[in-house]
């Protein structure tokens, strides 16, 4: 299952600059609390709140103008791809994996924060990518068996939502999701079924 985590890398710091068709935009620094809040939203709110809504006014207006301009090929799904990539770099992993991890932290805050405090970690002082790593470590620490770890891996690093923001089916598997990973995930699912 290591293939699923292939996209994980040291998270990039913010502010982070990115360009779309030569125009430069900057994703600013936000508090950990803000990241926990926006990444707990359902899609598309989880990425739309970050890019374009959290960008400075002119940048936000420019991207919103592009996705509504009939003469521009840049549309909602393209904006989603940009947001996934940029936020993914800040999270140090696939966007949807980071989204699932931070949602996990928000929905189990007491347990997660308590575990972090017992390890001497102040979660609120960490950037979002480090929070995601801490959540992953916390979940793995609670696993007794390898099959449990594999199950959590497939849940966290599994494919993105079936449909993009436009409602269209996504046509690409996430990074690291190859035939081997799919086969491994299938075998894990079968073993989970057999163990019931």
């Amino acid at each position, binding site marked *: 299952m290591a293939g699923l985590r292939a996209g994980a890398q040291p998270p990039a710091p913010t502010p982070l600059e990115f360009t779309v068709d030569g125009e430069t935009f900057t994703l600013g620094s936000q508090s950990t609390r803000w990241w926990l809040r926006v990444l707990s939203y359902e899609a598309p709110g989880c990425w739309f709140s970050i890019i374009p809504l959290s960008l400075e006014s002119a940048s936000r207006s420019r991207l919103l103008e592009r*996705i509504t301009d009939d003469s521009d090929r840049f549309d909602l799904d393209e904006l989603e791809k940009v947001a996934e990539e940029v936020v993914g770099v800040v999270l140090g992993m696939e966007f949807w994996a980071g989204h699932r991890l931070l949602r996990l932290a928000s929905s189990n805050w007491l347990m997660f924060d308590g575990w972090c405090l017992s390890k001497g970690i102040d979660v609120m002082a960490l950037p979002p990518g480090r929070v995601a790593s801490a959540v992953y470590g916390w979940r793995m620490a609670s696993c007794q068996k390898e099959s449990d770890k594999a199950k959590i891996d497939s849940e966290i690093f599994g494919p993105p939502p079936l449909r993009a923001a436009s409602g269209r*089916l996504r046509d690409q598997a996430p990074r690291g999701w190859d035939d081997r990973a799919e086969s491994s995930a299938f075998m894990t699912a079968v073993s989970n079924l057999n163990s019931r």
Partner: protein
Amino acid sequence: MTTHPDDELDVDQLDVLDFTSSDFTTTAYKKVSTTVDLLGEDVDFHRPKDGVLFFVQSAVADTANDADRWMAALRFLESSLTPQSRKRFLDRACDRSDPLNASALWDTIGELLRRWDPKTKIPASQKIVIEHRPDAAEGYNPVRIVDEALRLDFIAYPPKDIVLGFTGSAIAASASPAQQAWCVNLFLDGSLDGDVALELSYRLQSPAYGDDKLDLPHLLGIVRSLIERWYSGTNPNRAARRAQASQSRKSAPKVSRAVDRAPEAEEREEETTPPRRRAPAKKTAEGKPAPRTTKATVKPASRKTSGTARSSRKRTISGEFEEE
């Protein structure tokens, strides 16, 4: 306390991510259009970009406010209709004898959003038929607008709810002067008789028309007053006010004196004795029904200025008119 790793980095170390639209893997989707039988007239709607549909979907949700919904509807029409069909649509919206109303608009948008949803299996080309539903703004009475200084004397009829919605939301949303001018023209087209609307529009666009002082702010004030009177969307307490007025109608005098007032008090006006129900028709000496006359009075909210004008220019908005 853990050190925030970002604090240790210089600005020079920032990464830059580059994206180019042509590199995106999204397949170009073909343009689709759907024909809508809009109350007996076929209209071709072209599917706008996903970004537009995304905003429209968010705006037509129950949680969205009224102004956002109408602005989203305008954006939808702008993106999905050709200039010619958009003009025809707005002409129909302004035509008080045409059944096109707000219900038809929302039904059309709802059906098209469903039809163009990628999850829908019905072909986009399949025709949609929109049935007529009653207009929410029906039942209001016309108002006579009189302003001697501006040489205004005309009767404004309640436009259809679709015109009230578009103009009410755009004016409430602190629109730009150009948008306000557009809204005023739309409202006048939907509220006045054709020749009166044409004359006002001409006067508005021709500043050198004799000594004419009429300008956009004057008409904007009148339109705002009329919207306040007729459009419940801008005043959530309107239903309560109308109920209260209905209760007090029995004790209120049938005819009230029109109150002269300053133009700046216009936005605060209140409807005190709204003519809601028809009294039994009077008959002439020959036994034929006489023309019915109803008067509505508009007076400023401030009691201090009641009965006296605070400006040399007086404006009267009286509700005198004749019904068949």
